[in-house]
């Protein structure tokens, strides 16, 4: 696609032109590959807009609850492991990088490189989910699964959780405030869970793409799919870029 240089003139011109030798991947109702690429790309962007608004509601809820029950949210967030969080951020950012490289190699029509980078992205994505599951299981052990397996003891009596306590020296929360920590964890699971869901979907699609990339699906000039999936993947990355500070960092002080 890189080498093709179709201008407005030709696109318009090709309207009258008979429907001749189209590349196999061009759908019948498009006038040109360019148009098809533009269109699907734009569609992807619009889809990402809906995703933004989808997470928007959650961010709104978090913003509100955090301001109402500040102490609870602070101490609850101390239960998160900044180490894991940072690691995950790094993993996800690098996966974004490998994905971008994947797009590049597709545009360069380098099949080997494409497959390599896709596989790398795939692995990094799995790594992210792995770390996340470690964190989740930690929450399970600590009785921090809202609604299902929850106790506020870690907040009414911080000493009961020594390794967190020696780091933060939290004061015990009065019971009514401690009960609000459940809201924090609800939002934590809602947001990260929703994000993880997007990751899982992404990884599934990645697997499919790797399979197809092996059969030269994307290295014959038709990068649209790779490019658009890239957009999706980067978007998921961006969501995490905000979740990380909001959930892990900002309440350290």
């Amino acid at each position, binding site marked *: 696609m890189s080498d093709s240089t179709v201008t407005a003139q030709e696109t318009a011109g090709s309207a009258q032109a008979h429907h001749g030798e189209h590349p196999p991947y061009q759908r019948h109702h498009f006038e040109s590959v360019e148009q098809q690429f533009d269109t699907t790309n734009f569609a992807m962007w619009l889809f990402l807009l809906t995703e933004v608004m989808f997470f928007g509601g959650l961010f709104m809820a978090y*913003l509100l609850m955090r301001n109402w029950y500040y102490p609870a949210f602070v101490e609850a967030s101390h239960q998160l492991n900044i180490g894991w969080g940072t690691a995950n951020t790094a993993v996800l950012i690098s996966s974004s990088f490998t994905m*971008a490289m994947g797009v590049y190699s597709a545009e360069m029509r380098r099949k080997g490189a494409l497959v390599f980078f896709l596989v790398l992205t795939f692995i990094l994505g799995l790594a992210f989910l792995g770390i996340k599951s470690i964190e989740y299981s930690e929450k399970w052990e600590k009785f921090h699964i809202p609604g299902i397996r929850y106790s506020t003891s870690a907040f009414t009596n911080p000493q009961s959780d020594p390794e967190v306590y020696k780091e933060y020296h939290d004061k015990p929360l009065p019971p009514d405030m401690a009960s609000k920590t459940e809201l924090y964890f609800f939002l934590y699971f809602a947001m990260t869970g929703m994000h993880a869901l997007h990751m899982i979907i992404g990884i599934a699609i990645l697997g499919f793409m790797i399979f197809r990339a092996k059969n030269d699906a994307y290295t014959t000039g038709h990068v649209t799919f790779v490019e658009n999936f890239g957009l999706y993947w980067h978007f998921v990355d961006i969501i995490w870029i905000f979740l990380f500070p909001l959930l892990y960092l*900002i309440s350290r002080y």
Partner: protein
Amino acid sequence: MSAANANQGHEQDHEHDSEHHIVGPMVYLSIVLALLFFTGITVWASYIDLGETRLFNTGLTIFWNPVVALAIACTKMVLVVLFFMHVKYSTKLTKLTVLSGLFTFIALIGMTLTDYVSRAWGRW
């Protein structure tokens, strides 16, 4: 006549077809390094107490740690959007799309806050 119209019909959408810009690996590399760097910064910053500023007679208090953290997050987002997602090299339309997304998001948050923030002002 038709030819002339044909142009004006499509030019606003197809302006960039002529050169579908390809971003090189070096750009990606530098961006990812910048992102990792910023991640480091934001974690580091979170370990420092940046204090807070109280706005008088409203219940509002600005804590600086969140402000800094979010500022960094926004910078990272901008980097990803501009380079990884090629917006820097895309059509006006794409840029507009991104902005409209932000706009609506801000509308949602901002307009909802007009209620919650101002509740503290009156007796209602």
